[in-house]
């Protein structure tokens, strides 16, 4: 199951220490007060892969036995923030006029 790794921005072979460090970095950036939704997502993802047993379980049965498969797919797709592209003012104005 890839979603927790994507939420935390980690490779699928990350070890306990890497996962913990990344989690601490992210929760400092997205605190429960400033960004509760993202904080919850990060915490859930960390709980899902925090130790080796959970990671093996995730690899074996993650994503299965979930009737809400449609939202699970969306969560997977959403876990990766699309890469931000440098865009210029002229391009923005043209796009704005196009969609007016």
């Amino acid at each position, binding site marked *: 199951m890839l979603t927790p790794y994507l939420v935390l921005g980690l490779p699928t072979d990350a070890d306990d220490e890497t996962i913990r460090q990344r989690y601490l970095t992210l929760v400092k950036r997205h605190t429960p007060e400033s960004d509760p939704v993202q904080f919850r997502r990060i915490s859930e993802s960390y709980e899902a892969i925090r130790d080796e*047993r959970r990671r093996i*379980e995730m690899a074996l049965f993650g994503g299965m036995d979930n009737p809400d498969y449609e939202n699970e797919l*969306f969560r997977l*797709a959403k876990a990766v923030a*699309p890469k931000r592209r440098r*865009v210029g003012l*002229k391009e*923005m*104005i043209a796009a704005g006029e196009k*969609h007016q």
Partner: protein
Amino acid sequence: MAKKKKNSKKARNQQKNQFQQESAEALVDRAEAALSGGKAREAVELLKIAAKKPNAPDTIPVLLFRSYLVRERQLQAKGMHVEAEAVNRLAINCVTDAGHLEKTDLVLFAASAPAQKAFDAYAAYLSDKSPSLQIERQLVNRLLQTENWDWLDRLPSDTPIRKDASSVPVAVSQMNEGRWEAALEQLRHIPRSSPFAPLRLLCIAMRAFYDEDDKGFAKASAMIPEDFLLYPMMSTLRGFLTPDGGDPDEAYRADRTNDRLQIFFDGPVDPRPAISQLLADIKRKNSQKATRQIDYLARNIYPADPRYCKKTILAIISNMVFWEKCSFRDFTTMVDALLNKDEARDMMMRLDMHGQRPLYSAAHYIDFLPRLFPDLRRRSIAKSIIILNAFKKSRPRETLAYEYHASPLQWKGGRMVHETPWHLLGIDTNQKDRPHPYLAMALEGIACDPDNREWYQQIADMPRRSRNDQKAVESALLKMAERFPDDPFPLIELAGLYADKKAYRQAQKAIEKASKLAPYDNRVIDRKAALLLMSVHINAWRGKYHLARSDLEKAEALASRSSGPFIKEKAVLLDLLEAPWNAGRIIAETVSRHNSFDRLYLLVLLRMDIASSPANEKPNEDEKDRIVRSIQAQIDTDMQTIGPTMHSQQIMQLLSPVPSEYAQAIPVASGGTLKDIFSDTHITNMLRQVDKNDIIAACDRLLATGKYDMITEELTFRLNESGYDENPVMAFYQLVIDDLPDKTGNAPIIIDLIDDASPETGHLLMEAAKRLAPYASGRLFKALQLFDFDYLVPDLDPWLDDFEDDDDFEIHGHLSDAQDVLAILIGDTDAMTPAQLLAGAEKLVDYLYCRGTSNAEIREIRKMIPASFSSIENLENIDQLLAGMPEKDIKKLSREARVLFFG
């Protein structure tokens, strides 16, 4: 229709003629009224007529301009953009002298007129009026659109827009290159009151956007005024990055559909169309297209390792197979196309684990693990997880026996045996003194991964049917206590286990240790209180009242949350035992001290406690009878007065009054005791008062009383009220209980009910069957246990069998085979070799579904055999069949066979 149209046109012409007769002023008044009523088209018509009149007022062009702009907005709202643009041109053209426009009109004019006209109009406006920020902001928009900074020269040099513009062209060229940070530096001197301030805010927002500071972006973009050119785009982006309230996933999906955001991101911003397309393709059984979609999604979601992503997507999609939204065949096609051989096998094995035979599938999956986990330690953890998964899937449904019989048969070691790789799960059916197979699985799981706490919790919740089971649980809990020395959980559970074994001192020791680890843990306090009450119970019935009272005081001092009612009950019990001759007075005092339901509950506890008291103890039987009569009289009175006002939860509390941890302190009432406490009328009334959500649980509790008629009557009443189709589980209960203990008359209706049930309901019915099975006997018992009622229908047309599915056919085959095996064993035992006889006996064990079941269960089946197979003559005792077999051969028989044949 045509006539109606003609009449309407005629009326309009008449009205137009009437307008022609009116004065210009009157027409302008009418136009203003129409415009304020939102009738822009009518206003335009009227103003056009008025403009042609002699001495037309000067206000007509401005009014016409406003009317056209209102009309333009109306057309835009209708999505008629081309028409709206044409109307806009008319609006601009009708203004011949924009310098005379009011401020609000000029704002609108500046927003839509060609840039040159807009600047000229503002220059004229400034001749007699002061500068306007609103108009200048519109002019800034025009400058950004045209990037012709020369327009500014048309304005007086002291206008704010000219004063602040010096650094803007350079900043705008930097913005065009996407250098928002540099542009922001350029615009640093721009004040908040400047018409260029929105540009500076845009730079701040974009800098935050690229710093991935979404909060900063939201803050800056929220300050951009609504009349700024890029306001709609910034607003949409803000909604996407920081969804405000509601379901974030929903907001995410809604926002990602907006194409306007695409320019801000590389790759697909909106995965929804691709995912929706994928799900639609799967539902349409277009597995080839679905395969391509998965590939596309995987490459976009996780370009670093698309294969891993494909596995994840397939794992999620596998749920569609369970929910019958995707055929197994299509799923297999996708898996084979997207994954390599080993990965595909891994995926299909995982899918199998969710099927009808989780244990069998788990064993095969474990066999495959070396390929997935070359590292021994990780493999061992994986094995433990797989066993746990199979355990959790199999145990609620008790699939053990079914799975055993569904596994292939093979000739091994001189006898027919089922080919099962169950040793991989820790199950060894041949091992003597083995615990229950599920406990054996748990022990194997712990052996593979002793740090997996979930196993210990599972073990603690398991019923301990035999001494071997108790030993297994005890050893597991001791192991956990050693492994996790700071956790009070194993010690609390050990105390409970020792209490069940009536080893009070060991239980005390365990709970004292737990108390040292977690003195304020409620679980520890509750268990401690339960143990003290157990001691009170023992000492009270032994006549050692002083010891009992001392323990009762200790229990009271603990102030455990759950033990309150039981402490009160024991206090009254001690009073009664010490002075049985005063029973009437003690009960009367108890009644006066408690409120209505509490006292009824206490009396029921008391009644159960005394009913389960050991024989030949103090007080003597006569005194005990007198106490019981006094309590029962009060219960009867209370049931008449309080009974009708009790709510569902209270009734459920009365029917099952003692939680398991207090079972040793107040032995849980048997069905017989409940029957003695509550009369038929009480039971009928309670059943009627129980809430519909509790009725099945209430039935479960009352089944032990054997009052099947009353339960059936209540269920029939409820089903007639609400409909059978609405309550399949209730209907199933009614049909089965109506047949209890051993009739099969309702089997055809039950079969229809199961056939019509959805997969989820089918699962609920299967669980219901397991709960009802202990109250049934004979063939009904077997049908409930196996959740298969087909073979209870005796006269199925054999021709119809051809149209039945394979599973049904297999069951019929099994039964007829069982009869054949019995017939062979009866008829030709002398002619058979010992090996053949042994194989036949083992075959019979299989055909009667005895393999893997407990000895008690097999003995039940043994009793049923002569009756169930009545077509076989001269069969009185099954042990006669193997009577002549040498003892050394009998020892070769499996445990199940030995119990089946010899009891």
